[in-house]
């Protein structure tokens, strides 16, 4: 469904953030993107919905090259791609309902959105989603009155309001505590499965990534250095992605979480951040 072909990104400063990245994502497939800080993970997912414009290469979404679009065409293409952010990126001073409905802006005319007169179907969908992510009854709260976990749930619901085919998820758990992180990851995975969504999840936490995401892509200095099942992540692969380090603690945790699956026990265990 999504295919990246030899994607390059050179920033005006001359830094080459992506070097010939090629990647295929099938419909409904969820993959985790891991790699050290500055490897280009954020740049890569922002190239897909063109928040960042790639310098070369193609981004094929259902046969359409997103790299060539601009203006109206780009806006229409972006509606199919939902995005979830590390710092939630909610409009803080607006209500939860307005934040959810902002996911429908691409489908709504300016005056209707200015007067907050969204379609009845959109409103019904917003209520259903609010209930689904566990925030029923909070529609009139302001976004800045919510906790971190609640805000991320609003962020997820906003992305789903777009009725997307693909979710881009940028470090969804990096600002959350370990327990909330797992709940949020589980929620994202469940929703992808329910709706048959493909997703690319940028994630720092290797243990969390291997526990929830079946396919892992490792990025280092702008190039894909690993693309395979989560079970294939061992000391050698981690060293290839992140460089030399004593990985025994992490690989041990990955094995123990495999053993615990499908009911991981979050309590009392520290997350090992691979930074």
């Amino acid at each position: 469904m999504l295919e990246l072909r030899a994607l390059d990104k050179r920033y005006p400063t001359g830094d080459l953030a992506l070097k010939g990245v090629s990647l295929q994502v099938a419909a409904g497939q969820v993959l985790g993107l891991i790699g050290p800080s500055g490897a280009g993970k954020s740049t890569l997912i922002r190239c897909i919905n063109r928040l960042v414009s790639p310098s070369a290469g193609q981004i094929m979404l259902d046969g359409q090259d997103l790299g060539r679009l601009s203006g109206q065409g780009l806006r229409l293409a972006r509606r199919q791609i939902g995005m979830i952010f590390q710092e939630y990126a909610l409009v803080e001073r607006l209500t939860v309902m307005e934040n959810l409905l902002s996911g429908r802006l691409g489908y709504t005319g300016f005056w209707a959105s200015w007067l907050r007169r969204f379609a009845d179907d959109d409103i019904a969908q917003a209520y259903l989603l609010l209930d689904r992510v566990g925030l029923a009854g909070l529609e009139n709260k302001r976004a800045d009155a919510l906790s971190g976990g609640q805000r991320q749930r609003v962020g997820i619901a906003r992305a789903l309001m777009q009725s997307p085919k693909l979710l881009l998820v940028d470090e969804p758990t990096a600002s959350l505590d370990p327990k909330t992180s797992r709940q949020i990851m589980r929620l994202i995975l469940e929703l992808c499965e329910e709706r048959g969504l493909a997703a690319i999840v940028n994630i720092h936490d290797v243990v969390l990534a291997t526990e929830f995401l079946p396919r892992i892509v490792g990025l280092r200095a702008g190039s894909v250095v690993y693309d395979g099942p989560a079970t294939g992540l061992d000391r050698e692969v981690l060293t290839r992605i992140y460089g030399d380090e004593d990985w025994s603690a992490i690989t041990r945790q990955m094995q123990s979480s495999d053993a615990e699956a499908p009911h991981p026990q979050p309590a009392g265990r520290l997350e090992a951040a691979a930074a």
Partner: protein
Amino acid sequence: MTAAAAPRHWRRPPFITSLAWRWGLILGGALYLVLALASLEVNWARVSEGLARGLRFVAAFLQPDFGSRRSDIVIGFQESLTMTVTSTALGVALSIPVAVGAARNLAPAWIYLLCRGFIAVSRTLNEIIVAIFLVAMFGFGPFAGFLTLTFATIGFMAKLMAEDIEEIVPGQLEALRATGASYPQLLDFAVLSQVLPRLIGLSLYRLDINFRESAVIGIVGAGGIGATLNTAMDRYEFDTAAAVILVIIVIVMLAEYASGWLRKHVQ
């Protein structure tokens, strides 16, 4: 590093590293101050005369005369208030597109330069200079004052709002761009929602400034209470002038109180 080898002295590095430059600038500054003070000529006889005149003025404040030029004062204030409200409303409305154009994170370079240029012109020209020019163009009266204050309001509001817009959280802009929202929708959801409290606060502040300025530009013929005040001063009717100034003070204080109350309720 052992404990004995650790340095026990540390000084903040000086802002100007070169010793010669540092002392040169300090001594040069001191010398200029001395010379500048020496060049001032103070005529003490004139100062004492002025103090006596000032005392008479202060004494008039104790017995302000609202009565003998009552209709002049009322008409003056009506004109000033009209001028203030209309120029603030129009100025704020016109300043919004200029502010968006002058925000580097929203506008392309050529629009940015155009809007910044307009703001610079509007802020360079003092209200009095603009008022003199517009009075010459449109004649005496509050219309020239209205135009002057509108022009000044655009520059003031657009500059401060543009700086506020440049400081909005970029993540919210990015998130709404990712939903496929159009440019006007981005401005509504991501920008306006973030700068609204400041927009309201600054508009009320500008209302306040415009009222005070309307008293000043009246002196050069742009109508309003300034004209009344100027006439009273020209005729040495300090008691009437005192009445005018007292009313100005009361209105400014009321505006200050009202805007503080309103700002507290919009956050």
